[in-house]
């Protein structure tokens, strides 16, 4: 059986806020023992060390990982900013072990492999799945999905989202227990009778011609279809575009003669040479298509994704749904952000969901397939203990 308690607070005082959610979770536990925890916060410039200490003091034995975000997602409040949220997982059948991979911008594959080895050793069992929360800034030019596949496992279901910083794009933080990191990736391994289902909702809709990418270097595109990447974007969206707004219009990237694509968000424009940096690397050779982004498409995709993940266990409800939604989705949705959770919040379902707005999403297209790094998606992961017969 996999149970959970969670709480969220947007108290003006971040530390007071964390103390209140800790107290709330302790009350909800009612004597049960939490085995693992996820802590997300979008409080800017808060004393994260003090926040983690407050949690560790209340729950010293839990395997806790977390990160800074671009907003929290909970059933109680929907989307919140300047807030902190804590999820505690309770299960006798499922084991958890956490570790952290550091310096991932320099040596992602090695450090991920080491962290995985360490977490596995702590777990003492073969892991069933893994949740990862990499730095969303320093990993922009890191083939994080390839490193996860090679550093951890090709076949292990891996999912998660990358840490944010309130869309300031300056620095993100990652948490492991009481420790605070940057340029790191906490890992939470799970083992035991737990099942996973996944759906990936994509809002932007590719359209029009396929354009060849002439020159790409990692996550930086220099030239598309004979013009600089900036000129290419200006062709569609006009001049005077700014980096932040540009990021809401990802490119659909096609690497083979296939209709499958990955989305890549532009994040920084080099106006000296017209190149654009994207969140995530691009494989060569590739072609791209421009995408159309509307609130309706974004919401509809979220609703479809939610409905899909709620039905992955056929008649049985998931014990919990973890949600990793791209920050650009909430910026596109604006005042309608909360509508993204409508399907999950439907009366009678009572499925807890918990997550955050992130700078990149991680998960396989289909459970059992290799993991990929995504942009502009909402990755929904349903977890259910196999022993739960309800």
């Amino acid at each position: 059986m996999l149970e959970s308690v969670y709480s969220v607070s947007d108290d003006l005082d971040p530390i007071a806020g964390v103390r209140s959610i800790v107290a709330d979770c302790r009350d909800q536990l009612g004597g049960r023992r939490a085995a693992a925890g996820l802590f997300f916060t979008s409080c800017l410039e808060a004393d994260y060390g003090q926040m983690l200490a407050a949690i560790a003091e209340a729950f010293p034995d839990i395997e806790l990982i977390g990160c800074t975000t671009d907003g929290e997602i909970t059933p109680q409040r929907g989307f919140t900013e300047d807030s902190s949220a804590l999820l505690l997982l309770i299960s006798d059948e499922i084991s958890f072990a956490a570790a952290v991979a550091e310096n991932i911008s320099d040596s992602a594959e090695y450090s991920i492999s080491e962290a995985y080895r360490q977490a596995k050793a702590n777990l003492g069992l073969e892991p069933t799945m893994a949740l990862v929360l990499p730095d969303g800034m320093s990993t922009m030019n890191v083939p994080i999905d390839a490193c996860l596949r090679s550093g951890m496992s090709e076949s292990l279901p891996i999912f998660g989202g990358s840490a944010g910083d309130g869309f300031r794009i300056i620095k993100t933080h990652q948490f492991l227990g009481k420790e605070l990191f940057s340029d790191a990736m906490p890992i939470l391994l799970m083992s035991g009778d737990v099942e996973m289902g996944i759906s990936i909702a994509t809002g932007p809709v590719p359209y029009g011609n396929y354009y060849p990418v002439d020159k790409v270097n990692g996550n930086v595109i220099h030239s598309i279809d004979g013009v600089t990447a900036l000129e290419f974007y200006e062709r569609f969206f006009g001049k005077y575009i700014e980096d932040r707004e540009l990021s809401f219009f990802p490119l659909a990237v096609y690497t083979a003669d296939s209709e499958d694509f990955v989305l890549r968000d532009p994040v920084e424009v080099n106006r000296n040479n017209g190149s654009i940096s994207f969140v995530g690397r691009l494989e060569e050779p590739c072609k791209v298509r421009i995408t159309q982004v509307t609130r309706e498409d974004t919401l509809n995709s979220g609703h479809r994704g939610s409905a899909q993940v709620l039905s992955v266990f056929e008649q049985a409800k998931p014990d919990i749904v973890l949600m990793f939604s791209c920050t650009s989705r909430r910026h596109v949705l604006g005042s309608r952000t909360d509508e993204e959770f409508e399907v999950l919040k439907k009366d009678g379902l009572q499925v807890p969901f918990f997550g955050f707005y992130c700078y990149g999403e991680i998960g396989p297209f289909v459970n059992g397939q290799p993991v990929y790094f995504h942009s502009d998606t909402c990755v929904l992961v349903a977890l259910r203990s196999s022993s739960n017969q309800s």
Partner: protein
Amino acid sequence: MTDTEVLKPQLERANQEIGYLKRRISRMEKRLLRQEKLDDMNRHQTKWAMQQLEEARALAEKANQAKTDFLANMSHEIRTPLNIVLGMGELLAGTELADSQKQYLQSLRLSGEHLLKLINDILEFSRIESGCIEAIETPFDLKELLVGVEAMGAHLALEKGIEFSLEYDSSFHINRLGDSRKLRQVLLNLVGNAVKYTDSGGVCLSVAGLEYDNRESVLFSVSDTGIGIAQDKQELIFERFTQLEQGSRKIRSGVGLGLAISQRLVEAMGGLIKIESEIGKGSSFTVQLRLPFSEEDSFNPRYRELVGLPDALGPLRILVVDDIYLNFEVIRNYLKDLPVTIKYAENGRRAQKAFVDDSCDIILMDLRMPVMGGIEAVNHIRKLEEKLDIGPTPIIAMTAHAFVEQEETYLESGFDEVLIKPFTRIDLLAVLKRHSKQLPANAELVGNSDDQHASVDDGSGALAALIPKVLDTIAEEIVDIKRALSDNDHAILEKTSHSAKGLAGFYGFTRLSDLLDHLEESASRREYRTARALIVAIGSHVDELRRRQESSFEDIAN
């Protein structure tokens, strides 16, 4: 404890709240700004996408046009050798043949004619599809048109063993204004179709004037007792390449263009075509057209089509420029009853000189001429007008090239109108009327309703007397053509075929004109093998015409 110390925690909380609210407000502002920018970007994107769609649409249309052109070209390519086959068949039929050979030849000719009809349909439809369709309203005799359709319908019905009837009110106003050629084509299509799909019973063509606009609008109905068309197929039958089928079996021959062509022709005339049908009982196609009454003939009882003309200002001076004198003769004959003075120039340079020496009211200019062609001449004349500070003289191009694109080129070159050779007397008078304020009031646009060029002669026999000369001229041209072919000189070959074609057309030698048209086309494509075969067919045809001509003279002499 001081008041400040007491209030300190509250002040800190208040500051926190103010900071929090400031942040929230700032975020809201940013969110609004971001949404505005997103809207701008989306609008730009939409605009760009629309532009792309428009370009894609234009490209698709171009591609469709290319396909239509290809179809037309291919059909044309097929038509040329087919015409040779039919021509040879015709010649063969005039020779001594055994009965079985006659039978084989008859089958060959029937199949060939059927194939030619299909190809002509495709060509016609291609022409319509590419927008080369315009209704040309002229006065016509509706009764005569109906009688012609009846003759064809009755013949077809007789062959199939069914009945054909024409019904119309005898008090019906017969002099109408409209595009009689298109109307005839539509009615022939509908009647032909009705006979094709009727195995027993009959076909009836009925005509009635509609009361609501004083019977100027006419309803033509072609009803049959044929197989009928299912309700769900009735709209589809006007689509091109659609034919009635039973299951997967096509039940009649053809390519399914007749009704598509008819519909487009009716629409071009501003009319409506409808169908009512019931499976097993038959179909009724109705065409509603507005055909205004035209004025009665008051001049010559032989001619019935009349058009009013502006008041007289004086005699009309016309300059005809054509390298073939016999063409000039036709024009002169057409205008001989009218108070006009006609001058002749054999090429563009001579025309220039004639224009300077003695001004004229209208110039009729051939396009392909030695020394100086029509386009060059019109350029010079336009410049001269500018230099002399005189108003533009209407210059009418005369050409056997009937393609719309070419017409546009000629108009852009400075011509005021294009007259397609061979033209009828009524065509010529209509053009003169359009471009002259000086045509005398007693001049009437008179034409023969059957529109046969050679018979437009007023009966004095002036043109008929020229026919031997015309045939001699064409025979001489054939000698030149043969020489050009042996020299592989496609330019001379093309030019000579072109001029001979115009001449033949003018004198009503339709088949000869068609053969020369194909020869010109073959020359332009440098298809010498086809050209060689065509020259043989043309030579034989001219010989045959000369023989007939001689024997008719002998008959008259005897």
